[in-house]
């Protein structure tokens, strides 16, 4: 990332200055910054500030609607794949629907404040709006597939850090293309661009 930024700054004043002014190219008005409320979907950056942050690789820490304690669940012997069901089967590990939460929490610890929040969503017929912790920015145009990595024996912690000690999941590993390539090279996996970018 450092080189990336240095390269950006080193290149020319023009590119950075103009970029800072307006690097977010958008097709509609950017006044409304809250995502999801617009009547249309677009991969455009919602604001200029947003575009600048992404360019420089700064990512906001996601704020979860519910303080989910990973450590407690893992300590109770629940394996990652119980909730992240897709991880060995397909591209997406998946965040479970609140129906899965309620399978246990209808009875277990149902008096806790955070569990009540889950129940609240469940009863209204909606799902918990979890925020992604990892995931790639749309402008990376990356399609990551979990299953082949699991099959190749890559441990979850390799990319996600030691979740056993986390409450709410945090981005413990900075995943960028160099990180991916490092491993791919070491494992002699394909480094062809279209392996991931399509």
């Amino acid at each position, binding site marked *: 990332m450092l080189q990336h930024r240095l390269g950006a700054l080193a290149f020319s004043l023009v590119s950075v200055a*103009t970029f800072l*002014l307006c690097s977010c190219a958008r*097709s509609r008005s950017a006044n409304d910054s809250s995502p999801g409320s617009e009547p249309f979907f677009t991969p455009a950056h919602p604001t200029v500030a947003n575009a600048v942050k992404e360019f420089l690789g700064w990512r906001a820490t996601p704020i979860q609607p519910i303080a989910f304690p990973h450590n407690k669940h893992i300590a109770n012997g629940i394996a990652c794949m119980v909730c992240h069901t897709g991880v060995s089967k397909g591209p997406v590990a998946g965040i479970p629907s609140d129906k899965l939460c309620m399978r246990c929490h209808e009875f277990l610890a149902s008096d806790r404040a955070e569990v009540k929040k889950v129940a609240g969503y469940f009863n209204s017929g909606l799902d918990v709006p979890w925020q992604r912790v990892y995931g790639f920015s749309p402008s990376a145009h990356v399609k990551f597939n979990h299953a082949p990595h699991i099959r190749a024996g890559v441990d979850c912690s390799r990319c996600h850090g030691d979740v056993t000690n986390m409450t709410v999941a945090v981005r413990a590993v900075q995943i960028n293309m160099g990180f991916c390539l490092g491993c791919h090279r070491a494992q002699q996996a394909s480094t062809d661009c279209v392996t991931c970018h399509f």
Partner: protein
Amino acid sequence: MAQTAEQIQRDLLRPVLDPSRRAKPVIAGLALLVLAGFSAWMYQMYTGIGVAGIRRPVFWGFYITNFVFWIGISHAGTLISAILRLSNATWRRPITRCAEVITVFALLIGAMFPLIHLGRPWLAFWLAPYPNQRGLWPNYRSPLLWDFFAINTYLIGSLIFLLLPLIPDCALLRDNVTGWRNKLYSLLSLGWRGTQKQWHRLEAAMHIMAILIIPVAVSVHTIVSWDFAMTPVPMWHSTIFAPYFVAGAIFSGIAALIIAMVFLRSSLHLEEYLRPECFDNLGKLLLVMSLLWFYFLFAERLTTWYGNARPEIAVFWLTQRGPYRHLFWVMVGCNFVLPFPLLAIKKLRTIAGTFLASVAVVIGMWIERYLIIVPSLSHKFLPYAWGTYRPTWVEITITAATFCGMALLYLLFSEVVPVVSIWELKAGLREPVR
């Protein structure tokens, strides 16, 4: 040749030390137009490159036309001044700096256009080779990358070529001003004291630069032409393009130089220095280039027509008889029919005559770039995918703004340093007129 060294110094320092008030509104007006162009660019960045008129299949339009045009204009300077310096033509003394300045500014403007035209200009730095975590380098096979290096090399070279002969004049200015300007000129004069050793080194450096800059300049426009000639696009994929482009570049460069000189002459009262024989000589040069240009055009058109290959002939007829025919004949008129008599007949080769011819050539050469780019792209191989191109106000504003920008930069420059080299003219006094 009645001037004395003092007179020269007085006349030529005047615009710098005591700038005319009349220039102020002109500068303000030009600045406003440049700002309009800049705003248009910002608007384009914010909204998207789609506000330009480019479309499928004409993916390159006004911006690349401007790019080629301005890079062409930049050949005025350095090349002419370098050749004239090397051939030691005495009439070059008052015009070399005008010419070198054109080069630098035209290059700066020209180099902006690839950025303006990019879909994602904020990522332009990926063209520069630098080590990165992705392990990626730019593609050295791409003519655009050659461009990137050629233009940067040329820009650096031209800057040095401009700044080197500025040193003695800056030292002169340093000694005549105070305050922040003194600091600026001190910096630019690089501690010039006028010792014999320094003069000797300056002459040597200028000689080396003059020799180096010629192949660089030729290579720049050759590579610009290869942006086109390397691709299998009808009428682009041509071996004639490199010399055609270089000739066209020098052609339009000389015209731009003449225009600049006419303006400088009247606005800065340099009638004594930019004398008619300068224009006469440049006029002759322009005539040669006009003939050369026409020869290239004829050769290009004839071979295409005679060859009668299907995709090429479609483009050929598109410009000859199709919707681009008006532009084509305007181009021929501007680049040959009008300038030829004006420059060939000695009586007409006056300052006014060469000026008129030059204006025509600049317009004609801009159209020439446009006609090279747009018709070929609009009629590629599969007729179903044929299309048209129409510029939008954004492109037109930005284009207009760059012309204003050129004028503005030139005006400002003429207020900062003498546009005619004082020491070279002084040196000219010492040697016999040839």
